[in-house]
């Protein structure tokens, strides 16, 4: 074990020089690079944290906005459901009204149809009745019956009210002088009856009248004659026709 003072001193100097050289060419450059990198990383980390914080803020804002939207959506949905329910109720009411109206119309239509049918049936029954009566009266119609009706005609003509008499007189006078009054009869009149008719008419009109009778079997029994604008019915056919076409409600 030797100890050399020169080596000892030189080793101290050598080591100090080595410390300086390594600090100059190794430690400082590497540490500077490490520090730069660290500072850059810290800056980037700070930026990343800031970005993350911003993102968190945006996320919270978005969540709050989303919650508001959901709330508004729920509110709108409830309003829509309410409106739909109201509209549905109104629609149902309208349909019910429409149905009740349609039912009323249908009932009215059915009633009208029933009434029409009833009236038609009544008319048919009435027509059938008058046809039957006409057939019966056709069989009953005869010259004596015509003579009897003729007698009644003369009686009725004599028993007219003053107004009716005046009206017939005016109608007879409106015709020219010597106008022949036409009369239709169902059967041939008895002798003297045509003269009696002319006489009654002359008395009614206050001037001499001539009557010409023609045969019309369709009258069944009796006669029909025209004086001016008036037609005098005194026969069974016109009587039946009158009753046939008379409004049934008028009789009631």
């Amino acid at each position: 074990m030797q100890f050399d003072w020169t080596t000892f001193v030189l080793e101290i100097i050598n080591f100090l020089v080595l410390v300086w050289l390594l600090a100059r060419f190794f430690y400082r450059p590497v540490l500077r690079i490490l520090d730069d990198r660290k500072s850059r990383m810290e800056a980037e980390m700070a930026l990343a944290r800031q970005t993350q914080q911003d993102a968190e803020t945006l996320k919270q804002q978005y969540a709050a906005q989303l919650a508001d939207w959901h709330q508004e959506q729920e509110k709108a949905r409830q309003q829509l459901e309410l409106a739909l329910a109201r509209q549905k109720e109104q629609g149902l009411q309208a349909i019910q009204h429409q149905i009740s109206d349609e039912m009323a119309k249908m009932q009215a239509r059915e009633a009208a149809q029933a009434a029409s049918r009833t009236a038609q049936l009544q008319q048919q029954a009435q027509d059938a009745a008058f046809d039957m009566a006409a057939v019966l009266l056709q069989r009953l119609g005869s010259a004596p019956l015509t003579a009897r009706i003729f007698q009644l005609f003369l009686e009725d003509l004599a028993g007219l009210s003053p107004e009716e008499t005046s009206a017939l007189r005016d109608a007879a006078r409106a015709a020219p002088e010597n106008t022949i009054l036409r009369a239709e009869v169902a059967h041939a009149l008895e002798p003297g009856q045509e003269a009696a008719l002319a006489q009654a008419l002359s008395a009614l009109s206050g001037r001499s009248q001539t009557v010409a009778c023609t045969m019309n079997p369709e009258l069944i029994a009796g006669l029909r004659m025209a004086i001016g604008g008036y037609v005098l019915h005194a026969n069974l056919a016109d009587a039946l026709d009158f009753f046939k076409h008379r409004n049934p409600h008028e009789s009631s």
Partner: protein
Amino acid sequence: MSHDSAAITAVLWLGPLPLTETVLTTWGNMLALVVAAWLLVRHPALLPSRKQTLAESILVAIEQAIAEVVPENAVRPVLPFVATLWLFILCANLTGLIPGLHAPTRDLSATAALALLVFGSTHWYGIRTKGLRSYLKHYVEPSPILAPFHILSEITRTLALAIRLFGNIMSLEMAALLVLMIAGFLVPVPLLMLHVIEAVVQAYIFGTLALIYIAGAIEPDENATSTDSPEHPIKEKS
């Protein structure tokens, strides 16, 4: 093996100064370290190359090791000294593996110089960090009676540093030479593998002890008086 193989003799004379093999080998180690450092960090860039990554890894590992012992604000001031200790002693220890060369650390003059530097750096960092009065105050704490023991402790731990490194490296080389002489050419190879491990371990021990001494000087408290042991609990950083 001759008796001269263990002797430290002057190889060259620089004027009146005798240059021993230890000094020359140290210069070679210094040159190798500086050239290697220059090659590794020739073009420093934020996006590192493989060589720069290696250099950064070495330095970051050393910085983390220092940061575990000393306060955070003292890491950078302490780093050049301690890192150079680790790198130089490792390099010097491994020099003994090169045939024809001897490790500078097998010379007591070299290890004593390193130990003296550790001794001086301890006071240097302590005074720089705390001031002269405050630093010297720890010698009389907890009692002035203990001041001689403090001083004795510092001297003995410095001697222990020097002799531990010197003894281990020299004994390794001696053992390798003895085995080579007795057993033959390839038999000392396992012993050389042990030399590699021992070189790493001794460099680590020397640098770590130096770091602990410096940390004790920077933060003197009740535990700082017994920092001679590697098992000394690491104080909490401020």
